[in-house]
């Protein structure tokens, strides 16, 4: 199998990658992260092996870019309001707060980064545990654990 035209990747996975980044770094930084993810993907694309799992590879890059952003944010003297504010305010909440099941994803964003990433891959992009483990550089067992711990924590904290 040959590498598909890059545009086909963008068309097929662009929306998922964007949602994944909104879920992990928040709306304010998602666009920058998205751009960086796809530029990095373009940079590496010609060297990619033809039988690679393209979605897994893309999410590996997106995950790294998200981590870079989260680290940079942690280093900033005043933390961005988005992570600490209650989910009913801030840049994110506007439209989503109005419907019945609003804001579960802003709860996800308050989870520790590993759980957040694992949940976002699993439920935004329908990724398998194998894909999650590849993207996050962990064992499959750790990927499974991150998803389950994240779910448990949400279950305790979140009331619709």
């Amino acid at each position, binding site marked *: 199998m040959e590498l598909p*035209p890059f545009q086909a990747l963008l068309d097929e996975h662009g929306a998922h990658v964007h*949602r994944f980044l909104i879920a992990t770094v928040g709306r304010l930084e*998602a666009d920058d992260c998205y*751009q960086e993810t796809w530029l990095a993907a373009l940079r590496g694309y010609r060297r990619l092996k033809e039988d690679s799992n393209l979605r897994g590879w893309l999410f590996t890059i997106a995950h790294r870019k998200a981590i870079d952003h989260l680290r940079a944010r942690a280093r900033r003297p005043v933390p961005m309001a988005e992570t600490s504010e209650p989910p009913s305010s801030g840049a994110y909440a506007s439209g989503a707060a109005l419907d019945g099941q609003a804001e579960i994803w802003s709860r996800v964003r308050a989870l520790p980064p590993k759980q957040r990433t694992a949940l976002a891959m699993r439920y*935004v992009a329908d990724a398998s545990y194998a894909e999650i483990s590849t993207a996050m550089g962990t064992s499959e067992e750790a990927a499974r654990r991150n998803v389950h711990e994240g779910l448990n924590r949400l279950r305790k904290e979140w009331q619709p």
Partner: protein
Amino acid sequence: MTTAIERTLRRATGELDSTTRPDISDAASAAGLIDVAYATHESPLGELLLAATPRGLVRLAYIDSGPEATIEELARVLSPRVLRVPDKLDRVRRELEQYFAGSRDQFDVQLDWTLTRGFGRRVLQATARIPYGSVSTYAQVAAAAGSPRGSRAAGNALGANPLPIIVPCHRVLRSGGALGGYTGGLDRKRTLLAVESPQRPLV
């Protein structure tokens, strides 16, 4: 087993929707990461696919059955870093519009000949020199390409022209004046000749 919280997460991914996603093409282009840029273009001869490399226009194709096959071919033959960037094809699109409106008699865009080679390239480059409104023959372009007896091979090269309209293979006819062949079908060849010379009676 799917739990309630998992169902909620899946159902609520709409919370993560965005009406717009950033367009990466400007940044990708500035970083020199686009090997092939393409656009589609509506013309009087139907929808066209236009593709350019940093060196110039590399492909024009009639895409009656959709652009996918041609885009995949470009990815395979040139580079998989193929992106839709309509801006990069603006100039040739404008020139095509003027050409079909009868207000342009030559194309000024840079060409990238990468998809041609050897005798075929020489035939096409000879063809590119046939002036607007005039015609030549397979034998003549074969001779101009250095092979006076190569009219059949010249016909094959013209049939594989990666840049029809721009490299005017429609201006090449059989020696007796019959139309010969055309990549996009003879109706298109007739139309192109009519655009260039509205008074000429066509065979």
